[in-house]
């Protein structure tokens, strides 16, 4: 399943993606998250050490988290701030902690957390505004390492068609 989380108020992007993916018969879900109640991660570590796999913050993020467990691809559509994703986009990533466990292992030369679920979720970004694309590419590749997955690419909104080609 392809999971697309749109943290911007612009639904034209998701409309375009929907039309494209429906025409190809892809299995996908779109979450319009801009109006959802999603807190920042408060770093309590409860999802690792007290309530394994469950976030202590009871808000709309749980809807997204449950979908991530079966998603083969995660695409986050985000506005930008200070050259990076804006805080709404970053919060989607910061809140993924319940998907990994407290346990550690080496993967190659670097330490990684052991994943909680067997599902592998590749990650793509679509951004609006003044984002530093080269840095976002680097960052997204690092993010994917934490999921044992790969980056699907980073695209400005003007290249949403190119991003959609990678959604399958």
């Amino acid at each position, binding site marked *: 399943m392809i999971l697309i989380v749109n943290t911007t108020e612009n639904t034209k992007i998701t409309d375009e993606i929907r039309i494209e993916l429906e025409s190809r018969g892809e299995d996908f879900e779109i979450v319009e998250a801009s109006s959802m109640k999603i807190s*920042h991660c408060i770093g309590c570590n*409860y999802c690792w050490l007290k309530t394994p796999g469950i976030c202590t913050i009871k808000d709309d993020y749980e809807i997204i988290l449950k979908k991530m467990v079966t998603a083969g691809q995660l695409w986050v559509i985000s506005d930008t701030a200070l050259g990076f994703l804006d805080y709404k986009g970053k919060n989607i990533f*910061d809140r993924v902690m319940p998907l990994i466990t*407290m346990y550690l292992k080496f993967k190659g*030369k670097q330490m990684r957390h052991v994943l909680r679920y067997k599902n592998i979720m590749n990650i793509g970004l679509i951004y609006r505004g003044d984002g530093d694309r080269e840095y976002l590419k680097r960052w997204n590749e690092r993010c994917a390492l934490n999921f044992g997955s790969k980056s699907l690419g980073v695209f400005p909104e003007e290249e949403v068609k190119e991003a959609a080609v990678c959604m399958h």
Partner: protein
Amino acid sequence: MHALIINGSPRVKKYSNTDKILSKFTEGMAGSGSTFEQYEISDRLQWEKIRKAFSENENILIALPLYVENIPGLLLEFLSTVEPRNGEAQMSFILQSGFAEGCQLRCGEAYLEKLAGRLGCSYGGTLVKGDNFSIRLFEGEQREKVTGRYTAMGRIYGRDGNFSDPACKAFTGPEVFPLPIRLLVGLMMKTLAKRGFDKAAKGWGCERPLGDRPYAVR
């Protein structure tokens, strides 16, 4: 030298590893005759004061934990609301994480240099150090062993106003562990460390295995 210090951790001050690091770091600063004022991002009631201090201070130091390879969402939310300076201030950073190897923090460090520029400040460098997760789990001497090493770095920052001293670069430790260490630590993670985490979890009142899969599709 006087510095504005912002604790960029979203965790409340009482449980903040970053605050415990800052406590030792500022001891060193004071030892070199510097003064500071410290605020917490986790307390939104302080945000207006921090914005004002950000606009007035020449030396700005943000200490933060690495959250998914970059700055925490809450700190990003706050920084999106400050007025950029006009080049008359310098921003420096203390970047800390749970992962121990230096290479784990480099992507975040690269952003911090860009961030200083985006906020109209010169860049005073980043003090990069991992292996700090245990601060919260430890107390007394064990905690002191992890946080105490920051005092010498605070002394240097208080003296120089930046992290360009070679000792600050060396403070990071190894970029990656050599193979024999990886093998040894890998074994410890499967045995001693795993048991340690299980024990800590019981102490926190955890009633399920740490590897539990509550949302697994059955």
